[in-house]
């Protein structure tokens, strides 16, 4: 799994998340998001088009991060989930608690 800054749009940081988000890797997501929020950033769009796999450990990392961002009145938006990742989000009901857009452009244009 890799998460890195792609660009900034106004106050929003757009990051790309790629690879496999599992029990071995998902703390990398929590850690990097923590580093960014500590610099004062509050608004995030995560491009998930290259995220190939997510397990409950990955969902946990996203949930913990989304709660933290909510407490600072920020926003976390996920974009362009692959079908199997979207499937895991749907089964877990995460599509109801985390904003998801079909494409990165949809997220950027909101």
């Amino acid at each position, binding site marked *: 799994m890799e998460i890195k800054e792609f660009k900034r749009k106004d106050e929003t940081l757009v990051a790309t998340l790629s690879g496999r988000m599992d029990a071995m890797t998902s703390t990398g997501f929590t850690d990097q998001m923590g580093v960014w929020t500590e610099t004062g950033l509050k608004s995030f769009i995560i491009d998930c088009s290259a995220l190939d796999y997510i*397990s409950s*450990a990955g*969902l946990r990392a996203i949930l913990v991060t989304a*709660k933290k961002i909510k407490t600072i009145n920020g926003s976390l938006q996920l974009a362009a989930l692959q079908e199997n990742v979207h499937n895991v989000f749907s*089964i*877990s009901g995460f599509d*109801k*608690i985390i904003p998801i857009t079909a494409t990165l452009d949809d997220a950027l244009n909101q």
Partner: protein
Amino acid sequence: MPSTNNQEHISADHLELTAELKSLPCCMAFVSGRARQLGFSSKRIAEIELVIEEALVNIMDYAYPDQSGWLKLKLKTDPEESLSLMIKDQGAAFNPLEREAPDLEVGLMERPVGGLGIFLMKELTDDIFWQRQGDENCLTIIFAKRHA
């Protein structure tokens, strides 16, 4: 004899490894490789890998709190083209399937952290059951080619 060191025992249908996170990729490759041979779709293989991770992480987290231990995987195929996986450990008796399903209807801040792994396992398998056999936990998981 079961091994508790890092030595791996691999045969066509059996795999025995130490119950630790670094064994996970090997276990996944073992099961998904066989599923691929049987012609399972890449979508179904992704689901199988997820179930394997959830089942094994659960064992790694709970079975051996104070010492290292092993886990054993055994694969079987049946005429109806399903894949049956048996996972054994020698930890204290623990049936993960008894864990209550998380409430999926509550909002973000009310959502408890955790509990999704076992829920996902149940959702993505075609049959799953747990037995205590002697001093071993034995979890049997059935994957049909097309999950209903």
